[in-house]
Every structure is written in C-alpha cells, then in structure tokens.
C-alpha cells in the first residue's frame, strides 16, 4: 500500500483493523493520560525529602510515570480502530450542566498522532531533565503538570475543557523557565506568559462567542463546531482561533516568545515547549477552523498560507543572521509549524493528512533541533557561533544528532518528515500555489541557514581558543536519540513493520494507518464535487 493510497482511503465498508484491535478497552483510558501525571505530581509534591535525600526517587517517579503513560498510549494506539471515522475512547460525563459543560474526552486519528507525540516528548523531557540538581521536587511537579495539561488539551472534546487545559499548560511552563532557565530567563518567562496568556484569553473569547451565537447551551465540540453558522460568524470565530493558535505554534508575527524561551529554558523544558505544547496551536486550527468551520476554512486558507510563508521565511532569515546557536535552533524550530499550517491552508484531503502527520514529525523535529542546540551549547560552554567551530570530531554524538535534526527539518527521505512535507506540498501546490512556492522558498533559506550552521559548528576549522567541549552524556544522547529514533521509525515504517511475507502488522499498525481515522470526515467539505457526466459524454 503506498503512502498516498493510505491517506486517501475512505472509511472501509468492511473494517479490517489492526490485529488485536478492540481486545482491551478501558472506559477511562484517556483520563489516565491526564490524571496519572497529576497524581504523580501530587505524590512528588507531598513526599518528604529531607536535605534532598529522595531527589533521585523523584526523578524515577517522573520517569516511570512517563513510561507508564507510554504503555497506556501503546495500548490505545494498538487498539485504535482506524476504519472508524468517529471519536474513540470517548468519555462523557455531565460536569456543569447549568452552563452545558461536559467532561467529554475522545480521540480521532489526529488526536492519536498528537498523543503519541506527547508520550515520546514526555519521556524525552524527563531524560533531558535528569541533570537537574536544584529544587528537584518543584521541577518535576511542574513538568508533570505541564504534560498532563498538554494531554488534556489534546483529548478534550468540550471547548470548556480545551480552554481549561490550554490555559493550564502556560503557568507550569512559565515557572519552569523562570526557575531553571538561563541568564535571560525573566524576559523569556514573561514573554511566554504574555503571549500564551493572550492566546488563552483570545481562545476563551472565541469559545464564548461560539457558545453565544449557537445558543445551544453546550460547550461540546460536536455541538459548537457543527452548528451551521453563517459564513460571517464562522470567519469572525476562525480569525480569533487563528490568533490564539498563532501565539502558541507560533506563527509570525506572534512568535515573540519563541526565541527567548527556547534559548533560555533548560533542555527538558525546551523539548516539551517546542515538541508538544506548541503543536497545540496547529491542532487547534485543525479542530476548529478546518474541521469546524469549513466556510471560513475556504475563505481564510490564503491567510493561513500567507502566515505559513511568513513564518518559514522569517525563521530561515533570522536563523541565517543570528550568531547564537540556541537562537538559531529556536528560529529553525518555527519552520515545521509553518509547514503544518501550509498543509491546513491546502484545504484538501492530502494537505490535511500531511499536516496531521506534520504535527508529529514537526513536533519531533522542532524538539530535536532546539534540544540539540541547547545541549550542544551546554557541552561546548558557549552559545556564540563566532566561537563554536569544528566540533564534529570532539562531539560525534551531538554532531550526528544535529545532522539528523537538520535533515528532519528539511524533509529528507527515510525520515518521517519527508512523508509529511511531501503530502503537504502536493496538497498545497494545487490549492495554494503561491503560498506553497513561498513556503518552499522559505524552506530553501532555512536549508541555507542549516548548511551554514552545520559547516560552521561541526565541520569548520577547530577554534583553539574556545572553551573545552565534551560530547553528550548518556542521558542526553538517550533523550535526543529518542526524538531522532521516532523520526526514523515512522520514516522507515510509515505503515508499520509487517511479519515477513505477510500483511500482518508486527506490533505497530503504522502511524500513517492509524492517523487516517477521521481525516476523511475533516476533509469532506473541501473535496471538489466530481462533475456528473454530461449527456453528450454519456452518449
């Protein structure tokens, strides 16, 4: 089965799910993904820790909690029935019936992709945080709370819950930057809080506006986003959602927090912010604008394409100009977001599928480039590109990882981002040719910036006056390797590995297979009607 046929396949009339699908089911599977980290955070917050005696135990609790989440996710991923266009693992409880709030969770293919990303990022972030020595308790409590809120925002099927989790992720991440960041952490943290707070306020306003105009006394996405609103209202609400998403992803010109936060935060936090928390912006656009307001989706797709092009172009140029390796990593981490939005702007099944896959690949690639740059600057004891030079022989692990990160950003074959960018551009060239060319131009500038970065930092003449360097530690290699491994795995086995000689999946049904659930539904308003045969033609 080729890549494109997997994406284009419609819900199968005779379902042929992954072997074992549906064997295990839990009515609270998605709740576990939210509340296990919260409980672990509560346990860490309340356990006694005289003179830091149990710091290591706290790190272990955080690590094994994330490992447990990955196990739960593995179950969810394997049991997911990709032929169903509906939400799965749904949980629905009345919460505040007086105003129509439900505790409603559920995932479709896109949500599952985001959950897998969040699971991988969670493990990587804890591995990347094992070197934290100060205020270990507070650090891991905040990290787990941030992960829980990101998971909550992914699986929320009620707009009230979405606002709740979306907003809740900002405070722990701000405190993590503020408490464990670099020298300019204060500016970085306040910028993060300012932009994300603004985004939360705007999102809340949009959700409440939607709630008011539908008059449905419900915050349920199924009600609010399928209310059949007039195009004018759809556009107003969609513009608000675009602003909220642009503060989070981020998109130019609301990207002001990105450079400082990714340059100042500790590596474990960089991974969470660049990899998972910021992807929520694109996920919001997918859920609300593309899937929820198709009339606005049609009309605003050029705006999205323009924002994508501006973001990618700006990121490439800024990365080319900067002389700080962490700033370069931060700017380059904006590129995947632009590509994801271009896929959404394509408003075609292929483009949307590309952007869904790009949520995963872009998250991993952004986390990898920002994480490698953070670790590299720590290991080289300098952030200046005027100082860092010819490091490849002295830090081979990081050299490899930086190279993989660069290739992943550019969408080179055998990495998962290749498939994502291929689908995105194929989809976009038809409906948004100008935007697609502009983004491609921006990507070319980013490629130049990456080439300059690699040449200078890794393969230039060694700087004898630079401080001493060392290669990444085992933990650092593991956390970065996990991100690179995720990109390689999906790149090599987009449909999952099969038992040799059969079509039976080995243990992974394939991310590309699983993500298709629901995409046809989302893309259906954008499928051009097939012209009926004219009488002359039929004769």
């Amino acid at each position, binding site marked *: 089965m080729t890549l494109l046929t997997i994406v284009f396949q419609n819900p199968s009339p005779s379902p042929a799910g992954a072997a074992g699908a549906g064997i295990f089911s839990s009515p609270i599977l998605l709740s576990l993904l939210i509340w296990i980290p919260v409980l672990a955070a509560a346990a860490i917050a309340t356990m006694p820790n005289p003179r830091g005696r149990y710091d290591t135990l706290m790190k272990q609790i955080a690590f094994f909690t994330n490992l447990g989440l990955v196990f739960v996710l593995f179950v969810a991923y394997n049991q997911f029935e990709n032929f169903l266009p509906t939400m799965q693992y749904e949980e629905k409880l009345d919460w505040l019936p007086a105003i129509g709030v439900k505790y409603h969770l559920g995932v479709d293919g896109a949500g599952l992709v985001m959950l897998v990303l969040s699971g991988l990022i969670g493990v990587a972030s804890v591995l990347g945080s094992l070197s934290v020595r100060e205020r270990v308790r*507070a650090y891991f409590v905040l990290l787990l709370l941030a992960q829980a809120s990101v998971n909550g925002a992914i699986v929320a099927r009620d707009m009230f819950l979405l606002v709740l989790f979306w907003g809740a992720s900002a405070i722990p991440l701000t405190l993590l930057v503020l408490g464990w960041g670099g020298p300019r952490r204060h500016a970085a943290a306040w910028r993060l809080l300012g932009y994300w707070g603004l985004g939360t306020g705007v999102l809340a306003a949009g959700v*409440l506006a939607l709630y008011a105009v539908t008059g449905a006394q419900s915050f349920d996405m199924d009600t609010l986003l399928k209310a059949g609103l007039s195009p004018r209202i759809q556009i107003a609400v969609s513009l608000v959602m675009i602003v909220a998403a642009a503060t989070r992803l981020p998109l130019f010109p609301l990207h002001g927090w990105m450079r400082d936060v990714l340059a100042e935060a500790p590596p474990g936090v960089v991974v969470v912010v660049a990899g998972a928390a910021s992807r929520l912006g694109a996920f919001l656009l997918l859920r609300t604008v593309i899937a929820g307001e198709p009339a606005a989706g049609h009309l605003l797709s050029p705006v999205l394409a323009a924002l994508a092009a501006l973001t990618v172009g700006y990121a490439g140029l800024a990365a080319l100009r900067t002389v700080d390796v962490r700033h370069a990593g931060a700017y380059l981490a904006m590129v995947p977001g632009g590509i994801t939005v271009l896929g959404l702007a394509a408003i075609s099944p292929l483009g949307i599928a590309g952007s869904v896959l790009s949520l995963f690949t872009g998250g991993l690639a952004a986390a990898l480039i920002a994480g490698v740059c953070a670790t590299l600057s720590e290991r080289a004891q300098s952030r200046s590109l005027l100082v860092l030079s010819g490091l490849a022989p002295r830090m081979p692990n990081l050299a490899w990882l930086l190279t993989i990160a660069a290739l992943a950003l550019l969408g080179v074959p055998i990495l998962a981002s290749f498939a994502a960018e291929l689908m995105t551009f194929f989809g976009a060239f038809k409906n948004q040719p100008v935007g697609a060319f502009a983004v491609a131009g921006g990507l070319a500038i980013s490629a130049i910036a990456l080439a300059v970065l690699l040449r200078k930092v890794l393969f230039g003449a060694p700087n004898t006056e630079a401080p001493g360097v060392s290669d990444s530690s085992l933990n650092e290699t593991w956390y970065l390797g996990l991100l690179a491994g995720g990109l390689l795995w999906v790149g090599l086995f987009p449909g999952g590995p099969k038992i040799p000689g059969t079509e039976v999946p080995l243990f992974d049904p394939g991310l590309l297979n699983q993500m298709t659930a629901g995409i046809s539904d989302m893309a259906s308003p954008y499928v051009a009607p097939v012209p009926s045969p004219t009488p002359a033609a039929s004769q």
Partner: protein
Amino acid sequence: MLLPEALVVAMALLVMLSGRFGWIPRRASAYLPQATALIMLIALGIELWAGATLTTFFGGALVQDRFALFAKAVALLTAAVALAATDWTAEDSLHLGLAMPLLASFGILVAASAADLVGLWAGLELAAAAGVVLVSLRRPDLGLRLLVVGGVATTLIVVGLAFVYATTGNADLTAIRDVLMSHTPTLALAIPMLLLLGGLALRAGLAPFHVGVLPVGLGASPLGAGLVIGLVAVAAALVAVKLAAALIPIPAVYVPYANVIAALAMLGGGAAALAVRSPRPRLAYLAVGQLGWVAAGLATHFRSGTAAALFLLGAFAVAATCGPALLGRAEGGEPAIAGFGSVRPVRAAGLGLAMLSLAGAPPLAGFFGELAVGAALAQSGNFVLLGLGLLGAVMSAAAVVGTLRVLYIQSPLEESRRGAAAALPTVTAFSTAGGVAFCLVIAAYGAFGYPILGLADQGAEALGLK
C-alpha cells in the same frame, strides 16, 4: 430551622464572654479554635441537611430558600476553613479573633435570608462591624478610618434604600419587584441606584472605591485582612444580588452602573495586582479583580448570569478570606515569603492556590466561576465587558506567577535576617489541617461544580430570575 444561626451567635457570645470574664482556663483556651471550627462545621452540616426545606421566619422577615441555603453554606464553610487555617500566634486576640468571623458570618446569614431592605442592611452592617473590630485591635487608626469609610458607605446605601422604598412604597423585596413590574426606568430610580451601588462598591472595596478600604485591610492582622477583603465583600455582593433580583423588572436603572463597576474592578484589579509586589496587597487586588467578575455576572441581569456570579462568589469567599490567613504575618513584602514553599509547604500551597483561584487561572475554583460568568456575558452579547475581564484575568495570572516564583523558586531568607515582619507562621497540626482543607476545597470546587453550580442556579431561580 434557624439552628445554624443560633449556634453561630451562641458560640460567638460564648467566646467573647469567656475572653472577657476568663471562664475558660488558659490551657483549655488553646482548643478554642478547634471547638469553634467544629461548631461552624456542625452548623454547616445542619444547614445542608435541614436548609433544603423552604420556609419563612418572623412573619416572613427571613426566608429560607435555595439562595439562602447556598449563601449560608458558603459563609459557614469559609469561616470554618479560615478559623482552621489561621496562625493564632499572629492574631492580636484569640477570643475576638474567633468571635468576629462568626459575627461576620452571622451577618451574611441574616443578609442571605433577608426578605426586606432592613434585613439586608442589618446583615451587611453586622458583617462590616466585625471587620472594624478586628482591624481596630491592631491598628486603631485604621479601624477609625474603616469606620468612617463604612459610615460613608452606609449613608449611601441607606439613602439609596430609602429612595427605593419611597418609589415603590414597600420594603419587602418581593413586593418591590411586583410593584416595579408596572414601572418604567426613571431618573428618580436611577439616581438612588447610583448611590446604592456606590455604597455597596465602597463596602466591597471595588475599584475605584478600593482606596478607602484596601489599605485598611492591609494593615490588619491576617484574619482581619481576610475578613475585610473576603467576608465583608461577600456580604456586600450578596446584598447586591438580592437587590438586583428585586429590581429585575427595570434593569436599565442599575445595569449601566454595574457594567462600569465591573469593568473598572476587573481591569483595575488585574493591573494593580501586576503593579504591586508585596503578597498581601497583591492578594487584595486579585480579590478586587474577581469581585469585578461577580459584578459582571449581575450586570447580565439573567438567571444564568446571576447563578454564575453566585457560583463565583463561593470560590471568591473561600480564597479571599483564607488567603491572608494562610499568608500569616509575613508582612515584610516579597522577601518575607521567599522560599515559603520549602519552609512552610502547606501554607505556601494554600497561598498559591488562593492567588491562582482569585486570578481565575485554570483549573481552580475561580476559573470555573469566571468562565461561567463569561458564558453568561457572551449569551447576553456583552463582549466588551467579557474582553476587558479576560484582559484583567491575564494580568492577574501574570501577577500570580510572580508570587509563585518567589514562593517556590527563590531561596528562603536566613533566620538571622528574618525580622518580625518576615516571621514565619507557627506550624500546628490544626493549622496544617486547615491549610490542607483549604487546598482541597479550592481544588474540589470545580470538580464538584455539578452540584454547586446547580444549587447556585436554584438560588438564582429562588430570587425570581428567569
């Protein structure tokens, strides 16, 4: 059944008289806070058990309906948790410190049940007087100032109520509403409404009237500050809710004022919280901001908005009253609470949660209340007020993050540099239990929003709102 009221008053009198005449031995006095908190919890239990029965007392002067049940439950729970969380070594008088919150709660109980203008006024004044007493214990000058400011507020309120009585010929709230059904908005009603709402805003310390009340609260003992910022403001808000329900046939006479007050409070509270750095003023301004959301709920003049405002008022009452009590005597600005999280973890957690809730940060009690009010504002098409409120909430959240940084990320002061103004609260098993109880209430308020908001909705319905 007026048993909860009787229990509260009896306990307040017993505590005051025992303090005056030395009836209780010194060693046994140490257990008075526990006993008082227990009595409040028993009163709460009785209220929740028996308060569901609709009835009237004193020939209809007091009404036991769902609104009264909700408001009384909030007041009793708030007082119980505040008494438990207080560091009694930081208070100026154990006996008066215990009695005044009980009397303030009693004032709220009276106002909540009041069926006429006199009952409303009496309940509010009783709650406010308790605040004056507690403030005067530490700073008689500030007590006097509060008395004067309160006098101005009382004058405005009484003149406003008198005009309402003169216009409608009735003091009974239900009768006022019935009379106003056939009225049109007139200047003769709009002017007294301005006075009335101004007086209530002054009592509640809402911006721009906070300049009179807040500095007083900041100079009081921790519990005194909680009383002024929290319970007295709750009493004023409850009176406003009942009056708004009585005036619902002609909302045009009060809604524009309520809109302005709400906007000023939400924005002003958030901006002021961001501007100050000391924890107690910041807490006070956060409370002002959240009270603005309550006013915004009233401005919708619909049942859903009023229910949301009541729901939020419950969260506000607990956080605003208990916040200063949890802070204890750490009055020496930001340095006093540096590293509080490592030296007083339960109190720091409580203070952090109180501030986050007052800022409306997810997923705490205040967030649910503010979003419920936001939903009502959106339904009524008041997007300007909603936008201003969200802006204020964002500023409030930014302010709270600054305090959380100090609480958890900064290192604690060395003991040798810790003066009286930065003294750490004394840890006892009871105050720790109080802190834990506060954290549970704030965390559980949203989780158990179903029954709480349901009761608030029934409360709004009981006021005759549709």
